[in-house]
């Protein structure tokens, strides 16, 4: 797998630098195939092979959609020269409104399948965790961002000015993606899978920003469009930071314990304090807690949402607040999800021998995690310079740039107007640091320093069993009962042995992904039924083949006779 790692990086860079459709798709496929090879690098595990296959099919589908999109964009040009495939030629002659609408749909399919938009996300929770942790980090943190880049490049740059309704399909896909992604994450019990599902949620947040930018740009509010696009790009950067950090942490835990099932972990904060601290920063950042970076980008997105009453179109006035509500729900659930992840993995007592004997990660790992954690904090405290740096990219796409934020007093940011809203990450940081230290001082000054260790829960469990702790499943149970029944058809079955039987009672939970059940499984059945039919053709004799040729010939002649 070693050679594929630099190839994967090179492919992602080539996509971003490409200025013609061929180079773009070449880089895109390079990236897809290299990452496929990395996903199946541990091909001894059957699950990884299945993940790789699903990923390969979805990647091929996405590339097909993008190829068609580029074909439509290039078709507007004069002549049949291959020069029409260059992005500059595509910019020079915009597509017709109909073609541009189809391009929007194809870009949502093509880039969305790579980024993990619901319902094209099914490969993501399979493939991202199957790869080695550093590759998982790259796939979740960076490759999905390359897909976002592709969407922005096609829709904002090449497809010409947007129509008023372009934001609608994007928002309709993005809002549910954010909520569904985090709900998936809450149902998972595998650390890396939780992180992969949370990537789906963050992609939803980013696409909400992009949809808002499209809606505002097309409806005469370019300044708000610039705000929304900045928020989306900021979240792109942020997610690359904290998702890489979290995957590194998961990788460190995996190396230390050999385990990524949450039910086998616990108490790692004692054995791996530095990893635990870095993971805490990452978890807080992805839960959008101030003063970290995740808060800033989500806050900016909400600032754009709050400006939706100014839009002239009624449909958007109704839709955008609804999407905002979904986003708020997703943010809350994300916090729950990462409390669960962090609490189960790092707090409490070890649930297995491996967890109890873990060691702190090595220096390289800790350095990588620490630098990312510092960057998360820096981007949260100093959002102004980051916003200003992004304006170079925002301005050509929506025509306007946000007002400069870097020079404002006390490192504040004021996205719209001073009377309306402002945020100061630095002050929040100082306040939190001060109040936390004061609280700690107060506790230590007035409280007893003595530590008393006593059985916490002794009711009915004579032994001191770590399995009596809250588990990943039990933590998620309330949410599973609220959302899981209808959305995931989650069922809890309790198997109680008869009296006198010494077998343990079992509680098992079953869920299904509606995207599999209602979209991909019927599709798979249809394909296999069709190929079953077509397979019969492979077993004919010579005369039957000749008869087929003959029949086709006669049919064509009849058509010719009727038409000519």
């Amino acid at each position, binding site marked *: 797998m070693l050679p594929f790692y630099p190839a994967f990086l090179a492919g992602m860079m080539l996509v971003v630098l490409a200025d013609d459709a061929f180079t773009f798709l070449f880089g895109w496929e390079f990236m897809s195939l290299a990452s496929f090879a990395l996903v199946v690098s541990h091909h001894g595990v059957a699950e990884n092979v299945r993940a790789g296959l699903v990923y390969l099919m979805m990647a091929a589908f996405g590339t097909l959609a993008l190829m068609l999109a580029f074909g439509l964009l290039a078709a507007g040009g004069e002549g049949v020269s291959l020069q029409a495939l260059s992005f500059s030629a595509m910019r020079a002659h915009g597509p017709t409104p109909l073609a541009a609408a189809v391009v929007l749909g194809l870009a949502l399919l093509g880039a969305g399948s790579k980024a993990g938009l619901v319902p094209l996300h099914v490969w993501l929770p399979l493939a991202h965790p199957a790869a080695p942790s550093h590759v998982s980090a790259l796939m979740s943190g960076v490759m999905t961002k390359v897909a976002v880049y592709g969407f922005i490049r096609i829709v904002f740059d090449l497809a010409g000015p947007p129509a008023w309704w372009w934001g609608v399909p994007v928002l309709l896909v993005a809002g549910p993606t954010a909520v569904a992604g985090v709900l998936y994450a809450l149902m998972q019990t595998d650390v890396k899978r939780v992180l992969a599902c949370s990537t789906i949620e963050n992609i939803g947040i980013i696409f909400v920003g992009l949809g808002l930018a499209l809606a505002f740009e097309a409806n005469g509010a370019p300044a708000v469009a610039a705000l929304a696009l900045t928020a989306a790009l900021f979240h792109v950067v942020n997610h690359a930071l904290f998702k890489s950090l979290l995957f590194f942490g998961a990788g460190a835990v995996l190396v230390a314990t050999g385990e990524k099932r949450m039910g086998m972990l616990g108490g790692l904060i004692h054995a791996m304090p530095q990893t635990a601290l870095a993971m805490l920063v990452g978890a807080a950042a992805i839960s959008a807690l101030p003063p970290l970076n995740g808060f800033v980008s989500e806050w900016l997105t909400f600032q754009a949402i709050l400006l939706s009453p100014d839009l002239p179109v009624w449909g958007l006035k109704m839709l955008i607040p609804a999407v905002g509500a979904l986003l708020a729900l997703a943010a809350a659930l994300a916090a729950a999800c990462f409390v669960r992840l962090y609490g189960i993995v790092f707090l409490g007592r070890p649930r297995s021998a491996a967890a109890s004997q873990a060691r702190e990660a090595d220096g390289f790992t800790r350095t990588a995690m620490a630098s990312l954690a510092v960057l998360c904090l820096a981007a949260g405290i100093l959002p102004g310079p980051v916003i200003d740096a992004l304006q170079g990219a925002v301005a050509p796409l929506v025509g306007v740039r946000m007002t400069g934020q870097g020079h404002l007093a006390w490192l504040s940011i004021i996205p719209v107007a001073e009377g309306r809203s402002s945020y100061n990450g630095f002050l929040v940081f100082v306040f939190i640091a001060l109040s936390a230290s004061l609280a700690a001082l107060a506790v230590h000054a007035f409280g007893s320093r003595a530590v008393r260790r006593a059985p916490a829960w002794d009711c009915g469990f004579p032994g001191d069993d770590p399995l009596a702790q809250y588990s990943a499943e039990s933590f998620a149970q309330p949410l599973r009962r609220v959302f899981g029944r209808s959305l995931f058809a989650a069922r809890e079955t309790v198997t109680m042995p008869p009296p006198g039987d010494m077998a343990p009672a079992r509680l098992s939970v079953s869920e299904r992904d509606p995207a599999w059940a209602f979209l991909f499984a019927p599709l798979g059945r249809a394909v296999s039924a069709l190929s079953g039919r077509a397979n*019969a053709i492979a*077993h*004919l*004799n*010579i*005369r*039957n083949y*000749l*008869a087929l*040729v*003959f029949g086709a*010939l*006669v049919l064509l*002649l*009849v058509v*010719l*006779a009727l038409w*000519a």
Partner: protein
Amino acid sequence: MGNLVFDIAHLLAGLQVLVSFLLLYQDRLGALIRVFALQAVLLALSVAWQAYAQDAPHLYVTAAIALIFKVLIIPVALDRMVVRLGIHRQVETVVSVGPTMLAGIGLVGLSLVVMLRVTAGEADALAREDLAFALSVVLLGLLMMITRRNAVSQIIGFMSLENGLILAAAGARGMPLVVEISVAFSVLIAFIVIGSFVFRIRERFDTVDVDALERFRGGRG
């Protein structure tokens, strides 16, 4: 004069179609081979007449090739093959003769409709009629290939189909000699290849019924 040229060409081509029908209802292999030779004679005559009518000497060569290969060499070889294989002399049909003949009539009608309509106003009448008959011969040859079980009668169907191609080529002016010669040779080579295969099949499976191959291929047909 022009009328007579057209009529004779028409007559010869029409006779070939008629002979194709004769091929369809033969139930003896020997008779089948001889009817095929008759069709080849008619083909040679037809091509020679085209050579005279179009004043194209190279078509005489084509006629000679047809005469030598298809009237003499191939029928004799087929005859010997039948004798050496010792197969029974009956033509085994998949579809019985009556429906086959009806289908053949339909095919001739179809090819006339198609050809006359498609080539309307483009080629001269001579070429159009010739092409329509040639297409009929091709389709009847194909029909024969799919309604016969026996490998030898499939060879004859194939050769008859090729007769139709030569007829079309001769009717369309300007077909280079090189192409005709190469077509003739490739047909001969195809004949040799198919013939040797028939021998191999016979050696292995003790029959030349192509359906018998199915059992050895593990097919479902």
